[in-house]
């Protein structure tokens, strides 16, 4: 599986987990088009980031930091699954 596909799988798994915990139906059946930012607040973004980072470490054996709240435009990376995958792929 190519790198971006693996990242997409990590993101979708994390979204499904968050969807169950926060009861967000759209996340439980997440796919590449799922909108993220409009459905969650800043605290859920943090939970999602931490989970994605752990998934990434498991798959790629490398630490990354998905959350970058110092960047004023940071949340745009969380617009939807595809945007987030692109962002993580560049980290």
């Amino acid at each position, binding site marked *: 599986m190519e790198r971006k596909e693996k990242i997409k799988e990590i993101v979708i798994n994390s979204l499904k987990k968050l969807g169950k915990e926060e009861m967000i139906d759209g996340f439980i059946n997440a796919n590449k088009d799922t909108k993220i930012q409009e459905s969650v607040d*800043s605290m859920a973004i943090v*939970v999602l980031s931490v989970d994605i980072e752990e998934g990434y470490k498991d798959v790629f054996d490398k630490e990354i930091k998905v*959350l970058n709240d110092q960047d004023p435009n940071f949340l745009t990376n969380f617009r939807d699954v595809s945007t987030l995958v692109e962002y993580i792929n560049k980290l």
Partner: protein
Amino acid sequence: MGSQINFIDYYLPKKIVSNEELQTQFPDRDISKMANKIGVYKRHVVDKEETALDLAEKSCNNLFKTYDKDKIDFVILCTQSPDYYLPTSACLLQQRLGLSKNVGAFDVNQGCSGFIYGLTIAKGLISASIAKNVLLVMSETYSKHINSSDLGNRMIFGDASSAIVVEHGESEKIGNFVIGTDGEGADNLIVRNGGMKCRFDINAETIVSRNMDEQTNNDLYMNGSEIFYFVGKQIPQVVENTLLKNNLAKKDIDYYIFHQANEYMIDFLAKKLKLNKNQFYNNIEDIGNTVSSTIPIALLRSISEGLVKQGDKVMLCGFGVGYSWGAVIIEI
């Protein structure tokens, strides 16, 4: 010789700010949605003239209703809201409480990990035979640091003081500590002006956050997302390390009392650590995040509510501004 926590009490300022009152002040914000997430519905705040030292005096006097103050031989006051740069508030507290002139007294400038740091010092003083009965006081008035137009922080924080006595004893009931620091996170929870580097600036520019909260560099700034992120990454490891350092496993711990930052964060930690929610104290609905006092207040309340009993092993964990963290396992 060992050390143990035998007496705890606290004091909350009389003035209460409810969420309804905040909603009136911020009609355009959805306060009930925020409250459901952070779990705070009201908080106590000091009046203009009331300081952390005043609160400290009152929490100690509450404690002295059941404890003989003449036994105290050391005072540690944890606060980030001192009355003066110098002298320390602890010296003033010694005089106000009428404690012996033979007591040692100093302040510790620490926030949400302050109680754990205070315990490390108290245990050290006792184990080195420098003191026998240490009065450890936490007192904080973050409301004085928060801009009145900063709803986010006004929702979360409440003022309070708590006081405990750490006494020498036959057996050791305060276990091995895990403590840590990461100054890289300093900018994420800070009052920039008022110290020696940047003096208080009456003309400081107002900054509006993404959430429409307003503050200047004279006020408390908190990047909630980054703080939560630090907690989510760091604290599960601290818990594991504390168990390891005390040769204990999760099954040996009867109850967990973590810094009561906000309800969502505490719930998240419980899930992440795969802990039973019944073993995890989570209740700040009537007082908010009282900084260094959250753990002692939660400890006293959990004992009063019968959640923690004599002989129980309880893990305490504090974390926050600095970044700074600390954890320990105590026996009740």
